[in-house]
C-alpha cells in the first residue's frame, strides 16, 4: 500500500517519547497472557474454535474481523464475564501470576476483574451508570479495590481525571454522565479502568462512536497511559489502518477461528491469508480508485462444520478447504491457517 503524501504537518509532528519507543521484552520475561486452544460453545454453536495467541507485557494487540467474528466474546472471556452454564469453555488462558484462569471460580475472578484486568466498552454512555455522579463511579472502585480512604480516593479521582485530559476536574466529580460529551464519557471510562493499575486493559471498539479527531485523542490517551504503567492492551477494532497505527501484533478472526496472526508490520503490510487480504482491499485510502469488496456471507458456527469457515466466501478456496481445517502454522514471520495462501 503506497502511503500518499502526508504533507509536512505530519512529518514535523514529533511524537512524545512514550509513544515512539516500544517496550522491548527482556529475554526471560514470560508473556503476560497466553491463550491456547481456547474454544467456547453455546449449545450447538462453536463460537470460538481453538483460538491461540499470546501478548507480552507492555505490548498492544488488535483483534480484527467483521462483526460476529468472536472479538467481544474473547474480550468478555478474558475478564471472566462469560461464566454462565450455557457457555462451554475449554483450553487455557494463562495470566502471568494467576495461572490458568479458564477454570477459576467467581471468587478468584473477583480478585482479577477490575484489578488486574479492566475493560473499556464501545458505548460509554451505556456503560456508565446514568444515576451516579462521575465522582461516585470513580471513587467507589478506588475505595473498594484500592482500599483508599474517602479523601484519598477523592484526590486520586481528581488526579485520574486530569491524566485523561478533563479540565475543571473538581467540579466534574459532581457531574452526571449525560452532562458530558461522548468523548468526555469515554475519557471517564478510561480513568475508571486505569484506576486500579491493571496489567491488562481490554478496549472493545473504544472509538467507533466518535469523530476521527476524538478517536485520535482517545487512542493516544490509551497508548500513553498503558505504556506509562507498562500495562498491556488488547484493542478490538474493525479499522485495519487504525490497527496498524496502534497495535504491535494483530489477530485476524473469522467465524471464531484465527486466520492470521503476527506483528502488524508483517501481517498488514503483506497479508498472506485471503481473508486478511480481502479486509485490506476494503480499506479506503484517499487515492482508492477501485474497491474489491468480498461477497456477502456469514460464517457457520455449527460445531460440526469441519473445514475452513471462510471457504464459502473465499476467492482462493480449493476443494479440500471445506472438508479439512487448515492448521495454524508458522509462515514468513507470522502464523497462518490456510491451504492456499497468497505469496
Amino acid at each position, binding site marked *: 500500500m503506497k*502511503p500518499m503524501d502526508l*504533507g509536512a504537518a505530519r512529518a514535523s*509532528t514529533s511524537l512524545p517519547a512514550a509513544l515512539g519507543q516500544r517496550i522491548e521484552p527482556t529475554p526471560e520475561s514470560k508473556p503476560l497472557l497466553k491463550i491456547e486452544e481456547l474454544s467456547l460453545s453455546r449449545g450447538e454453536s462453536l463460537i470460538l474454535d481453538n483460538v491461540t495467541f499470546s501478548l507480552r507485557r507492555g505490548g498492544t494487540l488488535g483483534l480484527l474481523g467483521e462483526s460476529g467474528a468472536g472479538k467481544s466474546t474473547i474480550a468478555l472471556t478474558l475478564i471472566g464475564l462469560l461464566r454462565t452454564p450455557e457457555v462451554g469453555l475449554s483450553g487455557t488462558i494463562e495470566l502471568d501470576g494467576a495461572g490458568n484462569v479458564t477454570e477459576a471460580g467467581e471468587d478468584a475472578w473477583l480478585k482479577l476483574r477490575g484489578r488486574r484486568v479492566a475493560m473499556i466498552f464501545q458505548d460509554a454512555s451505556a456503560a456508565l451508570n446514568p444515576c451516579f455522579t462521575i465522582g461516585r463511579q470513580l471513587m467507589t472502585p478506588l475505595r473498594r479495590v484500592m482500599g483508599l480512604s474517602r479523601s484519598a480516593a477523592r484526590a486520586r479521582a481528581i488526579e485520574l481525571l486530569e491524566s485523561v485530559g478533563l479540565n475543571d476536574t473538581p467540579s466534574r466529580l459532581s457531574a452526571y454522565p449525560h452532562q458530558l460529551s461522548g468523548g468526555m464519557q469515554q475519557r471517564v471510562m478510561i480513568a475508571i479502568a486505569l484506576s486500579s493499575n491493571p496489567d491488562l486493559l481490554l478496549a472493545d471498539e473504544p472509538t467507533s462512536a466518535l469523530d476521527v479527531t476524538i478517536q485520535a485523542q482517545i487512542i493516544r490517551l490509551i497508548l500513553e497511559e498503558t505504556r506509562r504503567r507498562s500495562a498491556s492492551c488488547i484493542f478490538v477494532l474493525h*479499522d*485495519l489502518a487504525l490497527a*496498524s497505527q*496502534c497495535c504491535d501484533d494483530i489477530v485476524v478472526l473469522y467465524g471464531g477461528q484465527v486466520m492470521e496472526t503476527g506483528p502488524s508490520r508483517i501481517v498488514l503490510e503483506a497479508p498472506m491469508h485471503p481473508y486478511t487480504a480481502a479486509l485490506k482491499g476494503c480499506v479506503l485510502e484517499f*487515492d482508492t480508485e477501485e474497491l474489491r469488496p468480498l461477497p456477502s456471507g456469514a460464517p457457520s458456527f455449527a460445531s460440526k462444520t469441519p473445514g475452513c469457515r471462510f471457504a464459502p466466501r473465499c476467492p482462493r478456496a480449493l476443494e479440500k478447504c471445506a472438508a479439512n481445517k487448515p492448521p495454524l502454522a508458522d509462515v514468513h514471520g507470522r502464523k497462518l491457517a490456510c491451504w492456499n495462501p497468497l505469496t
Partner: protein
Amino acid sequence: MTTAPIFRLLDVQKAYEVRAKGGSLFTRAKRRLRALDGVRLSLGPGESLAIVGESGSGKTTLLRVLLGLTQPTDGRALFREKDIGDLAGTDRDRFCREVAMIYQDARGSLNPRMSVLDLVAEPLDHHKLCAKAERRDRVTALLTRVGLAPEMMSRYVSALSGGQLRRVAIARALASEPSVLVADEAVSGLDVSTQAQILQLLRDLQREMGLSLLFITHDLGVAAYLCDRIAVMYLGRVVEAGATREVLKAPAHPYTRALLNASPRFFAPISDPLPGEVPSPIDLPPGCRFAGRCVRAQSDCHTREPALTPASPTRAFACLHPLPFSEPSAH
C-alpha cells in the same frame, strides 16, 4: 458549463432559540444558536458533493434545510431556482419525486410491518409511476439493480442483514426516479466489507444514472471515493471547499489538515490530535471560529473573521493564514 444548479444555498443561516445552561429555569436567558451561519453552495446535475466535519458542525441541519424540513432564518435555499419553503402544487410534487433521501438509520427508517415489496413500491404508488400490473416487475428490476434477489420481496425488515437493509433503502430511494440522492452517514456502522459493497453500488448508480449526490460523511476516505467535490464544515460554516482530490492532497485550511491527520492511515504514527472538541455555537467569540483549536492562529485571527474566498477555479477556503498549497499544474 452553464447547466442550472439543482440546489443552491445563498448565505443560509439557521438559528435556534435555546436557553443557556446554568441559572434557574426562569433566569436563563434565551440565546441564539447558529447551527448554520452563512452557508453558500450549489449542486449541479450529475455532481457529487461530500459534506464533512465533526459532529455539531451543522451537517444534518444543512440537510434538513435542503429537504425543506426546516426553514432558513436568513438567506435562501433554492431548488431549481425556487425557494424550497415556497414550493407548492406540481413544483412540490416534482421536488418530492426528484429528491430522494437515504437515512443513516436504515432499520429505523423502514416500517417493520411492511414487506420489502411494499416498501420499495410505496414511492411508485405515491407518485403513480406505474400501473398495478407492472408493480411487481418494477420492484424486481429495482431490487436487481441494487444487487438483491427478487425473492427478497416477501421478507420483512427484521429478517434482513445490515447490508441488505441499506440496499432496500437505496432501491426505495431509486423508485421515484430521482435526479438527486441525499444521504446522511449512509454507510457508517457497517462492516468494512459491507461498506465497500454499498459504496461501490452508490458510485455505479451515480455514474450510470447521472444522479446528483449529496453525501454527508465523517470519513474522508468515503468522501474521496464517492464525491468529486467536498465541503468541509466547522461550526455552521463551510471553511474549505473544492475538488476532493485536490483538497485532500494539499488542504489549505488548518481544520481540513487536522481532519486529515486524524484519519487512520496505514503505519503512519498517530498524529498530535486536534485539541478539544467542537464548542457550542452559542456566544461565539469574534474572529475566526476555529482560532481556539488552531495551531496556526495569530493575533489577527481573534479579531478578523475570514470569509470563504475562491483561491482558484477549483478551490476556496476561509482562513487568514492558510497552509501553502500549489495549484494543480495544467495538463
